[in-house]
């Protein structure tokens, strides 16, 4: 059987009462010309032709070797295996999970079991969220977090029951957990079928369709600026601001252009991952890949000395936007503006257990180093990495390399040539307890 004949499978997750069944019924109604088989959980209540609705009992098979990536849903293998023997072929298979189901074994079933892999293609995981009641679960339910983190498509349902402001708050929160998912706001799960079917969530060809939004990584700083600094002692002046201290990083840059900033921002991420060096008001800062922590006095203006030995392009990255402190750089006593500057999406530090780490960096990867790092990472942190996807630039290969994965399962292959597009690496990890700085640092080390 050829790959394109595989029957697409959509997995519907979401808490009880979120509107999963409403969505399922809507799909069955709107796609009535198609033959859709439904695998329901034991609490399902889909009212269609019995032959097309089968009940599953969520039987998770853990393998003797204890490897989490081998955890599969035995009930699905059994039911789908039988279904695929039938002469009447299905156009689509929908799997409705229970509200408390872990999406990982469901997804893995389609990659681990050879029979499933051959006949079926997991198209996407659609998670329905009750926009009003999700707040009761999102903080302490690992199931709710996992369902959000695993999703390709998230419906914020029941929008009629919440204020627009609360909805914005919810969407922001969910974006932090899973920036790769497409989020739609719905009432009564009303949505276009093309938004939930054929989404290609596990299709490598479409792995980066949501690019570049989801790949906009978060940074430990909010602002970066490039300056051309002469040798000498300059000054950084700050007023009172929202915080009594601020992270600050200064180093010699490749250029003062915008490109230079982009080239240097990863160095800044690394610098920010080092232990902060406290600098009291009046103290001196020298260029280098370290993080200074500027200590502001209780009130009033303060000044820090910037000591430059070698003239040339320099980059400054600040934890907060300088405007928040009315901060200025004085060169020979005269305030100067950055020759190019960039604002960064701040790193949200509300200790989200489930979160994402995006890495975007120019340059080519040393394939050996990258392989070694990734296999080590998946071996050690695989259980905590729910999903990952991205595009890589591999040294010596004219083609883009695309990949995606679930826990320790990795699927990747060369894609189209880079052509005129500038070579770069963009990848995202979604998971639990991810160490942003560490992942960035380790990835940088894989560059050729």
């Amino acid at each position: 059987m050829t790959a394109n004949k595989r029957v697409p499978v959509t997995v519907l997750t979401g808490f009880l009462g979120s509107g999963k069944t409403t969505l399922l019924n809507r799909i069955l109604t709107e796609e009535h010309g198609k033959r859709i088989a439904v695998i329901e959980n034991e609490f399902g209540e889909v009212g269609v032709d019995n032959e097309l609705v089968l009940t599953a009992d969520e039987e998770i098979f853990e393998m003797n070797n204890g490897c989490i990536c081998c955890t599969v849903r035995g009930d699905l293998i059994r039911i789908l295996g039988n279904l695929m023997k039938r002469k009447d072929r299905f156009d689509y298979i929908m799997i409705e999970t229970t509200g408390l189901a872990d999406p990982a074994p469901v997804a893995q079933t389609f990659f681990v079991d050879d029979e499933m892999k051959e006949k079926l293609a997991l198209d996407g995981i659609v998670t329905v969220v009750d926009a009003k009641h999700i707040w009761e679960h999102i903080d302490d339910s690992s199931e709710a977090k996992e369902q959000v983190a695993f999703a390709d498509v998230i419906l914020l349902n029941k929008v009629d029951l919440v204020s627009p402001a609360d909805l914005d708050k919810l969407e922001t929160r969910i974006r932090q957990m899973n920036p790769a998912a497409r989020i739609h706001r719905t009432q009564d799960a009303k949505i276009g079928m093309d938004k939930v079917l054929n989404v290609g969530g596990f299709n490598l060809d479409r792995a980066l369709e949501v690019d570049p939004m989801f790949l906009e990584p978060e940074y430990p700083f909010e602002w970066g600026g490039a300056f051309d600094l002469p040798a000498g002692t300059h000054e950084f002046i700050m007023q009172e601001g929202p915080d009594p201290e601020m992270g600050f990083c200064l180093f010699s840059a490749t250029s003062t252009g915008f490109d230079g900033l982009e080239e240097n921002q990863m160095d800044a991420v690394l610098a920010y991952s080092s232990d902060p060096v406290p600098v009291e008001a009046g103290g001196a800062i020298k260029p280098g890949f370290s993080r200074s922590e500027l200590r502001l006095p209780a009130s009033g203006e303060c000044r820090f000395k910037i000591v430059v030995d070698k003239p040339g392009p320099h980059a400054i990255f600040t934890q907060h936007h300088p405007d928040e402190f009315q901060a200025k750089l004085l060169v020979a006593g005269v305030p100067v503006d950055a020759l190019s500057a960039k604002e960064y999406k701040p790193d949200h530090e509300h200790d989200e257990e489930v979160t994402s780490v995006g890495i975007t960096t120019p340059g080519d990867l040393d394939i050996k180093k990258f392989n070694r790092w990734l296999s080590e990472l998946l071996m050690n942190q695989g259980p905590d990495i729910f999903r990952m996807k991205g595009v890589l630039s591999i040294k010596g290969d004219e083609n883009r390399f695309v990949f995606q994965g679930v826990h320790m399962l990795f699927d990747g292959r060369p894609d189209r040539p880079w052509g005129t597009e500038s070579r770069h690496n963009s990848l995202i990890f979604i998971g639990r307890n991810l160490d942003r700085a560490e992942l960035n640092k380790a990835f940088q080390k894989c560059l050729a």
Partner: protein
Amino acid sequence: MPRLAAPPPLVSAPQLRLAWETGIGDHVIRIVWSPDGGLLAIAAVSGAVQVRNGATGDLLCVFDGHGFGTQSLAWNKSGKLLASGGQDGMARSWSLAEGRCVAEFEGGAPWVEHVAWHPLREDALLTAAGRKLRYRSANGALIREYPDFDSTIYDLAWQPGSTHFAVAGYGGIVMYKDDAKEQARRFDWKGSILSFAYSPNGNFIATGNQDASVHFWYRKSGKDLQMTGYMTKVRELSWDAGSRFLATGGSPVVTVWDCSGKGPAGSTPAQLDEHGVPVSALAFQHAGALLASGCPGGLVCVWNHRKPDRPLRQARLDGGITQLAWAADDKKFAAASASGAVRVFIASEQA
């Protein structure tokens, strides 16, 4: 100039001799010979069950089977009753003489995946549906309901010629005697068993597993060992008549373990390599030494596993092989496919 090597000779085993063939137009999910070899029952995945004359292939009877699909089939000891289980949650007993269903009973879950008649009694059978295990008389009266199994029951079989039986699934194997509700024995194993097979003498139990392994128990001592390294999950298991050789699938190569002496631990199994894709069916003769194998490519091979270089005979069916079964006299065997082809072949000692 490099010399051109002669192409390797196209080794192709002689063709199997055909006794008769038919087509049912649907995936064949089960075939079962009656105990005397006179009848062949054929179940389609969509439900209907045909009974044919084993010698000629003449259609004798068609039973409705199960509305949403038939899952299992078994003849009773005398061959007068055929039991079936299906996706309508029911098990049924069919009388060939009367040409109709004579009893029907609920399995206790949406799918009745296994039915198995008592090997020594005429009128009692087991059904397994989901976690439910029930023991009934042929008229449907419930003799005993067993406590729910820990998981879905993946396989169920009587120990050959005995009053003991076992069920297997995720978590291990539980054994019972036919006169008690209490477990007679249990082998715990944290893994997912897909199929199991008693050796004919009852000394060994082998399981085929989801994690691409075969597990093996000495029934009396409970000592066990595991054979790993299969390419894919293992469902295909068949013991030879002498309870010495166990043929296993889970790979394009059929692996035959020798369980004599200290084996199979540390022994090198025979490897029968002809199919090219993972085999889907295996069957040793009841008394003889021949082994039949089939694969999704539609190829059927008959082997003497002591001469593993090449099969003795082969044939190709339309559609992947789903079932292989030897008739009681070992002279005929039936092969069936996913496209609905059913062929009965004649095999002698030389195949």
